[in-house]
């Protein structure tokens, strides 16, 4: 049996009287990709936002590598090796790739200028970005081009590369294939799998697309009304069964 890297116990998130996530038990094993699926409003997004610290949990516990952790902000989750990869909000479109990679964690110059005035070391950041992009298999013509000028797949690579660069051991993907053309979707799926293989990270994916889920995930977790209503290993199930669990039609 593989090691459990992330475990949620009775995790809940209420917005006023609405129980968006209600007592969810979830385990994520090392090197595993799980997909969380469910209809609109099933609580997928709320669940991962609670795990990644965007929302404060109402009750329940989160364990990382068997140790209980207190996650109250995105910084907390990051400190525990959780990196969340958002689709549209994952990058600042009017910033270039290096600025995006180092946003919020800018590398300062290692001298008086850096210490006194927080002057950034742009050369270092550029070099590191080049290395990072090489690792995720992207070559950019112009590093200083705004991210909005990149293709959807390149943009996604920058976002994913960022998560890996900062040493994320648990990556959470929120709709990674949304708003992309078929060719780009293919590449993003390959990228996610490759990253899992190369860096032995564990991955949670949220997706609407059942076919992508079946390509990516080892295990599929179905949410409905904030509760887990089904959990299947990919090899034991088929798309029809998953869809019927999602919709609740037996």
């Amino acid at each position, binding site marked *: 049996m593989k090691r459990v890297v992330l475990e949620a116990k009775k995790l809940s998130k209420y917005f006023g009287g609405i129980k968006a996530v209600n007592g969810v038990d979830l385990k994520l094993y090392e090197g595993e990709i799980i997909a969380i699926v469910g209809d609109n409003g099933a609580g997928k997004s709320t669940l991962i936002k609670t795990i990644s610290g*965007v929302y404060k949990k109402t009750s329940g516990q989160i364990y990382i590598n068997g140790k209980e952790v207190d996650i109250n*902000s*995105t*910084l907390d989750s*990051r400190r525990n090796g959780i990196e*969340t990869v*958002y689709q549209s*909000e*994952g*990058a*600042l*479109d*009017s*910033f270039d790739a290096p*600025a995006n990679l180092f*946003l*919020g*964690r*800018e590398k*300062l110059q290692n001298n008086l200028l850096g210490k006194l*005035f*927080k*002057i*950034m070391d*742009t050369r270092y950041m550029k070099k590191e970005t080049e290395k990072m992009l090489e690792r995720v298999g992207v070559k950019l013509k112009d590093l200083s081009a705004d991210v909005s000028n990149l293709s959807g797949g390149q943009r996604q690579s920058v976002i994913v590369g960022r998560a890996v660069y900062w040493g994320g051991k648990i990556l959470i993907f929120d709709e990674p294939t949304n708003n992309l053309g078929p060719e780009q979707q293919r590449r993003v799926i390959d990228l996610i799998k490759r990253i899992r293989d190369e860096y032995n990270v564990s991955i949670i994916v949220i997706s609407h697309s059942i076919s992508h889920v079946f390509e990516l995930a080892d295990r599929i977790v179905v949410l409905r009304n904030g509760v887990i209503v089904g959990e299947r290993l990919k090899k034991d199930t088929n798309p029809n069964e998953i869809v019927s669990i999602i919709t609740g039609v037996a």
Partner: protein
Amino acid sequence: MGEKNIFSHSLQKKFITNCSLEICIGAMMSKEFDFRIFWRNYGILIVFFIFYVSLSFGSDAFLTVNNQLNILRQISILGLISLGVFTTLKAGNVDLSVGSALGFIGVICAKVSLYYGTAIALLAAFSVALFIGFLNGFFSTRGRNLSIMVTLSMKFILYSGTLVITRAMPITGLPKSLIFLGHENIGPVPMPAIVLIVVVIIFWIFFSYTAAGRRVSAVGVSDITSSFFGISVKRVQIYTFLISALCAALAGIVMVGRCTSGQPNAGLGAELDAIGAVLIGGTSLQGGIGTVRGVMVGVLILGLINNGLNLLGVDPFYRDAVKGGVILFAILMDQWERKK
């Protein structure tokens, strides 16, 4: 006006043709010439250039060293508060209180200097500025898009405060050291111009090279993304209001020097000129977009309108209409640029 225009007319023409040719050729040499991108990069500079050149032709008094320095003196106060407004806009807010803050801080500074001297007066000015900036920032970050209303209220409150302190009468008899920043020259260069240039350089470095400056833009582009990336959005935004208020304080002190007194109506309505300058310079009201360079060109254009129309003998009642027209033009061009 005994000075002669420093360029002869033939020289002027040569200068203009050379400069414009250089810009155009430089742009067209690149293979994918796109007028939109060209306009985004140089449009506002071209407008400035056209203003500048037509004024040089239109008035002999315009292109004199004296008048150029005069323009710098005239725009210094607008420049300072525009940079403040720009900083708040960069982070997705707007500070409408800078004009009144300028006046309020100015009269406080003047009043305090009468009793406690210049040093304490300056200290008071900057402390009050920080307090105003903090209130603006604190209340503006209680929800989304509150800054317009919060800073508008602040504008009224501060103006009232100015009237209460001054009883609508100028405060005079100020110590010489206090009016130094606004009144003196170093060589031929007026102090206010030097203050503005130093501040512009600081802002330019801040936004181009520092982590803090980059975060201000990030927050303006998307507060959601920024918070996902661990940036404390509210704190950054409060800082921008502090910066804006400090700019207003500096402008207020310069203003006191220029008037050699604390004027109750100083800075009244200046925030609108500042917003106009910032918009002309290509800063987006949605936040995040805009450069210090653009702001300064915007400020210069407004400065030219004020100074030049005077020299051309245009009826001053038309001046605001020209300003309005230029702002409208800048915004329409901006919309056109953004269209895909």
